[in-house]
């Protein structure tokens, strides 16, 4: 796997990890019980995808998925800014979900065509799961598409999809602190 392909896998893995954490913030407090279940389930899937993608890169680099996920500095993450935003209003959460799934589907198509059978195979497996996320996002899009608050949220967040992956928000630093606190507090030599 060349360096460019590793970078692409890391970008996707970081997106899925960070967005998975953000989605999980709705657990227990979503506006509808069904959405509590939906976003918790989506979060679980996204973090599962992140793990599988990190594992592919880790194998190339002689490291582990956990080290890639949690032992880098926040500035080294390659996630898109749209994934970093914390506990958005509901219309923004749905707008982000819709925009993200649309963009994610495009890059998964690209990965499914990879020459590397491990990459192509994993992308195809992930895509089967993402199909359910897309159905969910589409259902909400159809429900909200004529609401001004929703369309304004889509317009506001869309640029953050392609805003570049070198700069990050303060919110990513805060999330990193939360996400890695237990790991960092363990004595040296602890195995997980």
């Amino acid at each position, binding site marked *: 796997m060349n360096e460019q392909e590793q970078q692409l896998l890391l970008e996707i893995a970081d997106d899925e990890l960070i967005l998975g954490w953000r989605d999980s913030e709705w657990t227990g407090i979503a506006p509808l019980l069904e959405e509590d279940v939906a976003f918790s389930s989506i979060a*679980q899937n996204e973090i599962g*995808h992140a*793990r599988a993608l990190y594992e592919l890169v880790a194998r190339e680099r002689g490291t582990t998925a956990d080290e890639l996920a949690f032992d880098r500095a926040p500035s080294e993450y390659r996630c898109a800014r749209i994934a970093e935003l914390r506990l958005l209003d509901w219309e923004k959460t749905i707008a982000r979900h819709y925009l993200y799934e649309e963009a994610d589907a495009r890059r998964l198509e690209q990965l499914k065509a990879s020459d590397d059978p491990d990459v192509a*195979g994993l992308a195809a*497996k992930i*895509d089967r799961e993402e*199909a359910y996320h897309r159905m969910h996002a589409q259902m909400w899009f159809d429900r909200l598409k004529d609401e001004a608050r929703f369309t304004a949220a889509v317009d506001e967040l869309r640029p953050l999809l392609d805003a570049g992956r070198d700069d990050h928000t303060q919110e990513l630093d805060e999330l990193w602190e939360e996400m890695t606190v237990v790991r960092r507090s363990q004595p040296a030599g602890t195995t997980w």
Partner: protein
Amino acid sequence: MVTTEQVWAALAEIPDPEIPIISLVDLGVIRDVAVDNGTVRVAFTPTFLGCPALEVMRDAMAERVRALGAEPEITVRSDDSWSTDRITPEGREKLRASGFAPPAPREASAPTLVQLQANVFRCPYCGSTDTRLENIFGPTPCRSLRYCASCRQPFEQFKTI
């Protein structure tokens, strides 16, 4: 010396951690068993990549292999060559008998899952096809929630993967 048949038989006794009425072999997730001297290699595919039962399943398989006096080597195969179509007929019947609708065939459901749902999703209690989707997501990633308008019973549908 352990035979592959013995390994398959031992693995067939491991219940799915989240739906214990069905075994890992019924579920079709065990892809390959190979015996090489004292080592038994087992390859399996999780239904969903984020399945929290992955480690539990891996440990259970390793334990069964050790009980046969062999050294286990369990690998996870994360590709698209496994689908819920691989659930055995026995497995599908066990699911149905305990109130889980078995997954629809991949061909019938993808890629236009929404439009075709009505034809392929049958109530596990009364057999009616007059059912509707309540929530794409359910108590575990591999299940959806549906409602049968005929016998007025909510039920869980195994997702097609």
